[in-house]
């Protein structure tokens, strides 16, 4: 027997429950309580409206560069809805819907993208890491956090989000490997939105799926229709339950689409066609979920309209709070805070240097 097939413990499966035409697979339909269904819808709509508003604010020059989320609401909220407050969320930089769901304040998001470090504030009862910009580096933190949970005998889990481009990074593989070796309670949620700035998924890797990367680590994996919140929820439920009960990590690949720009500094017309975008607009996760909820009798066009008005006024109120905070012009000297627990002498000297400079500038301005 010189040559034989090696049986792998897992295979890659694809899950779709509510298709782009609104057709529902009744057998696979997850049992989600009505209030949670409505909360998910509200969360998606809030994220959509806040994203739109941020884009306007950016175009008006009121905030700086940010990464829009349009189209990825379902592929995030379907998964993050499974987390308990004591669980940890480890996001990349396109997880605004998840962050809002978990309790991050919109005004803090505006503060960060408006250029103030103060927006990094995280409430003491929220176990979420701040946004991580270097692609693919943060899943390792999630693996370490999950190891610590296991070491402490907790039933908590960690969930980390990243894109298709991140799966080309070495740190992604190292995180998958560490998580698998130590069998930690961690869910890797890949937001395969088809584009890493201008590089399409097909150039990122020859692998037929991103999910299959888990097979190299004997890790369970699944590919889901990320624009189908029911499928994302069902897959995440299984993964979270496995992690919580000591079954180790899972890789979820959510097939979705970045309907907007990579960041506001990007022009997608250079690398993708309007036709492609139009195709994906037909698969809009929000429209699809609304149809499902209407069919279930949970929503009507009037109710949708009412929720829409509510979330828009929520966004407006947050914007007001953000403007109020920035009107007070945070102290530039605060840049010296929080580098170390205790500020060392050389930084106190440099802080005094800036303090003098600011005083001189104020004096010049007063005299001028």
């Amino acid at each position, binding site marked *: 027997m010189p040559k034989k097939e090696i049986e792998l413990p897992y295979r890659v499966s694809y899950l779709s429950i509510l298709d782009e035409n609104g057709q529902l697979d009744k057998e696979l339909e997850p049992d989600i309580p009505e209030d949670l269904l409505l909360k998910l819808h509200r969360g998606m709509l809030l994220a959509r409206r806040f994203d739109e508003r941020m884009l306007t604010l950016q175009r008006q020059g009121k905030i700086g560069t940010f990464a829009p989320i349009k189209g990825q609401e379902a592929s995030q909220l379907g998964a993050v809805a499974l987390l308990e407050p004591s669980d940890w969320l480890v996001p990349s930089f396109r997880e605004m819907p998840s962050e809002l769901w978990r309790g991050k304040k919109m005004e803090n998001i505006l503060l960060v993208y408006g250029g103030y470090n103060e927006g990094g504030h*995280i409430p003491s009862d929220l176990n979420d890491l701040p946004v991580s910009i270097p692609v693919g*580096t943060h899943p390792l933190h999630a693996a370490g956090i999950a190891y610590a949970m296991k070491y402490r005998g907790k039933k908590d889990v960690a969930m980390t989000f990243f894109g298709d481009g991140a799966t080309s990074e070495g740190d992604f593989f190292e995180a998958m490997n560490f998580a698998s*070796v130590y069998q930690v309670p961690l869910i890797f949620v890949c937001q395969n939105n088809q584009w890493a700035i201008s590089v399409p998924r097909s150039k990122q890797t020859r692998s037929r799926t991103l999910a299959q990367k888990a097979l190299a680590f004997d890790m369970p994996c699944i590919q889901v229709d990320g624009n189908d919140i029911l499928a994302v929820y069902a897959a995440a439920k299984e993964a979270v339950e496995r992690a919580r009960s000591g079954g180790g990590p899972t890789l979820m690949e959510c097939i979705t689409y970045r309907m907007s720009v990579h960041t506001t500094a990007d022009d997608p017309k250079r690398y993708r066609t309007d036709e492609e975008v139009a195709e994906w607009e037909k698969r809009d996760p929000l429209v699809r979920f609304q149809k499902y909820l209407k069919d279930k009798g949970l929503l009507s066009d009037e109710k949708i309209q009412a929720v829409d008005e509510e979330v828009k006024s929520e966004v407006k109120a947050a914007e007001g709070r953000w403007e109020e905070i920035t009107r007070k012009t945070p102290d530039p000297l605060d840049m010296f805070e929080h580098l170390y627990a205790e500020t*060392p002498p050389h*930084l106190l000297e440099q802080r005094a240097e800036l303090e003098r400079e600011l005083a001189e500038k104020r004096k010049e301005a007063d005299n001028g």
Partner: protein
Amino acid sequence: MAKLTMVQAINLALRQEMEKDDRVIVLGEDVGVDGGVFRVTEGLIEQFGPERVLDTPLAESGIAGFSIGMALYGLRPVCEMQFSGFSYLAFHQMESHAARLRGRSLGRFSVPMVLRAPYGAGVRALEHHSESREVYWAHTPGLKMVIPSSPRNARALLVSAIRDPDPVVYYEPKALYRAFREEVPDEEETFPIGKSHMAREGRDVTLVSFGAMMHPTLQAAELLKEKDGIDAEVIDLLTLAPLDDSLFTASARKTGRVVVVHEAPRSFGAGAELVARLVEKSFLSLEAPVRRVTGFDLVIPLFQREMDYLPGVHRIVSAVRETVQY
């Protein structure tokens, strides 16, 4: 009190901190069953088990990033880079995250981890096993950078590093691992990070060094006293970041003459910062240009030439004589 090598002293620090605090976790390549390639972590896995002493996969960035996660959760990981020459893969994690998470979260999170790595030349090793790249870390805001020079201060500084609320990169002068023994107290001893140490008092010239180079520097001081009657003051930095410039700038104001010694390449090395601090804080007292006795701006050659690359007693003595006679 026992006479220990630096390897034994570091091991003592790890063991005692692990006994005292179950948040302390040791991880790295071969640190468990093998006890580390230099045996620094010998016996720890037997005493504390594989959940606290992790033989990790061979992935430096992974080790650093995994440690960051543990630290964020409230543990106190002490990770080992097998050689500092392989630590650059971990640099991204340390620079982009370990150093910044406190600030990024406005103090909600912190990363109390230690990254240990043997550094430096003089042990007849392969390529990538002899570098001295401490300034990469020392230049990074948010990190602390510590380099001990003896068994006793190695132990005390590592205990302080483990208890520090911020990430500490701790370089171990591997040329000194078993070079000599020193009395190390059994009871707890710490040494504050961010403080330099007066290793030898003198009045004619100030020598500033750290790590493995402290030894040729101290030998040079003795030789200069004996042969030339030059009385050198020697300052051991112990911490590069945050740098304590109080001792050496005060000493420069007393002696007026300074020689800086390190084995890393000269350009943009620690010596450049020391000279800048001297100019800023002791300029009017200087009687001679500050000399830098350092490694050359080269990739360190293989071991047949490493002693010619490294600053030694001869190079230091010559520089001191010229500085004193200037």
